[in-house]
């Protein structure tokens, strides 16, 4: 005879197991659908090339053939060039969005300076607007390339978004040729910030934490600082995850043990400190 209690227990077990199976299958289906949605949002190679062609037109130029160049070392980006390598267009794989374009001839063109910084700034602004970029709320810096820089013939205008002294992960770079006034390159990064940007950790504490993580203070005369640590507050984005961080830059020379003639290694180290928790944050992991 089968015990009634045991039978009921057995049936209850089957019901629970079935329910668990149903939950697992449902979750799997949801996950599969999510993957399909993501896959559909990826720009195809054809779409990316078409986008690239339209972008070359933004520079006032035409190109017949564009191809995706394999092996670009920066992930998540299609690098698209023409056969003569006059252009380079970068399109985001996930959205098909244009993130960069450059014209080789206009980067290479050297000649007497015919365009003033002020006029070049106007040209850069006009181009950014034509490319659909809103510069409202952006701060402008002009990069000063050295006399032996490969970009010495360019004015580089960098607009980056700042809110309450926090550097946001959105920027626009436009390079203008000093001689021809033509746009040599354009690139943009645009990320909507979705985290609070008021830090709990003060700047001074962040510097101390960063210094401690490197052990600089305890190394004594083995380390010679080139300048005082520089701290800036910004939003770090990696794989879509945002974090408010103090970026602490240390520039120093570290003595090589037993090194000849006072040999040392010049170092530029940037330590990121989570501005809410004080934890040291590695942007490469």
């Amino acid at each position, binding site marked *: 005879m089968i015990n009634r209690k045991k039978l009921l227990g057995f049936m209850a077990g089957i019901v629970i197991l079935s329910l668990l199976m149903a939950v697992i299958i449902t979750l799997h289906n949801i996950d599969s659908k999510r993957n399909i949605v993501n896959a559909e949002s990826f720009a195809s190679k054809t779409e990316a090339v078409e986008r690239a062609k339209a972008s070359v037109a933004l520079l006032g130029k035409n190109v017949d053939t564009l191809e995706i160049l394999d*092996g670009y070392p920066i992930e998540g980006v299609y690098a698209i060039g023409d056969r003569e390598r006059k252009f380079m267009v970068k399109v985001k794989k996930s959205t098909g969005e244009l993130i960069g374009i450059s014209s080789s001839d206009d980067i290479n063109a050297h000649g007497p300076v015919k365009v003033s910084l002020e006029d070049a700034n106007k040209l850069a602004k006009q181009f950014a607007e034509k490319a659909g970029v809103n510069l409202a709320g952006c701060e402008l810096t002009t990069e000063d390339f050295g006399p032996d820089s490969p970009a010495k013939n360019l004015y580089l205008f960098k607009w980056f978004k700042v809110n309450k002294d926090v550097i946001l992960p959105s920027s626009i770079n436009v390079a203008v040729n000093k001689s021809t006034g033509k746009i040599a390159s354009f690139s943009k990064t645009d990320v909507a910030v979705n985290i609070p940007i008021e830090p709990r950790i003060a700047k001074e504490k962040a510097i101390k934490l960063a210094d401690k993580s490197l052990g600089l203070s305890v190394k004594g005369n083995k380390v010679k600082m080139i300048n005082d640590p520089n701290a800036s507050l*910004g939003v770090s984005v990696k794989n879509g995850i945002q974090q408010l961080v103090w970026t602490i830059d240390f520039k120093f020379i570290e003595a090589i043990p037993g090194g000849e003639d006072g040999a040392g290694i010049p170092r530029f180290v*940037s330590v990121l400190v989570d501005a809410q928790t004080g934890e040291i944050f590695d942007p490469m992991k």
Partner: protein
Amino acid sequence: MFKQRDILIVLILVAALAGNTIAYATTKYSPPRARCYGFQYSDLDTRLTAKHGSDELDLVGYDSMYLYDNPAHYAYNNMYQNAIYAFTGHGVTFSGHPGGVVFWNTYTSSYPKTTYFRSGSGSNTSSQVWLNNLSNSSFSEMLLAVNAGCYTAYSDSTYGNYTKRMYEKGANTAIGFGDLVLDEYNKKWFETFFWYVRYNYTFGNASYNAARDTGQLYDPQFGRSDWGGLWSVTLYGSSTAKGTPARYGI
């Protein structure tokens, strides 16, 4: 009629010409040689970076090799054979003056672990070699020299400019950095630069584009907006030369 003396002169001339040809043939290899040096320092590993650069050059026809943890003497003795010479690693200062690069050596016990390839003048020893001890035409067949490290193109009052000196000794194009550069930016720049070289962009374009692209990638991750020091990329010689087809410099 030729005199015996005339025949002797002709023979000497022919021999001299043949000697030159042999010397020429020993330095210009076919396919042209490219060498990328990377290191496993205690705080920085550039071995894979060197391999990436080397792989790109291999694809366009160079006899390309990546070399790990070799002493500076190895590069010093062999770089005259290189169409492309590339270093990725640490720069070095002496009493605070920038003056070359560090070759971290675990390859051979014949030299110390820390060896220096220095700009300026001095006597070669087991731990250091000096660029100025090479003849002024040492790099006359070098198409490109890349020194990816901090201060490698800094013009110092005591030691001069390491990268510029390579150009002055014959490299058609020499590229380095005038300032300090963040390690991760430096490594990504190196890989991206040689990717552009592989696709036949000019050295000027490749060096600028690689700096801009790396800044665009890493600035949002590091919460900064300054390309991590890559704006100081410096180029001596031809900015419009290209690395393809694989060839020696002239």
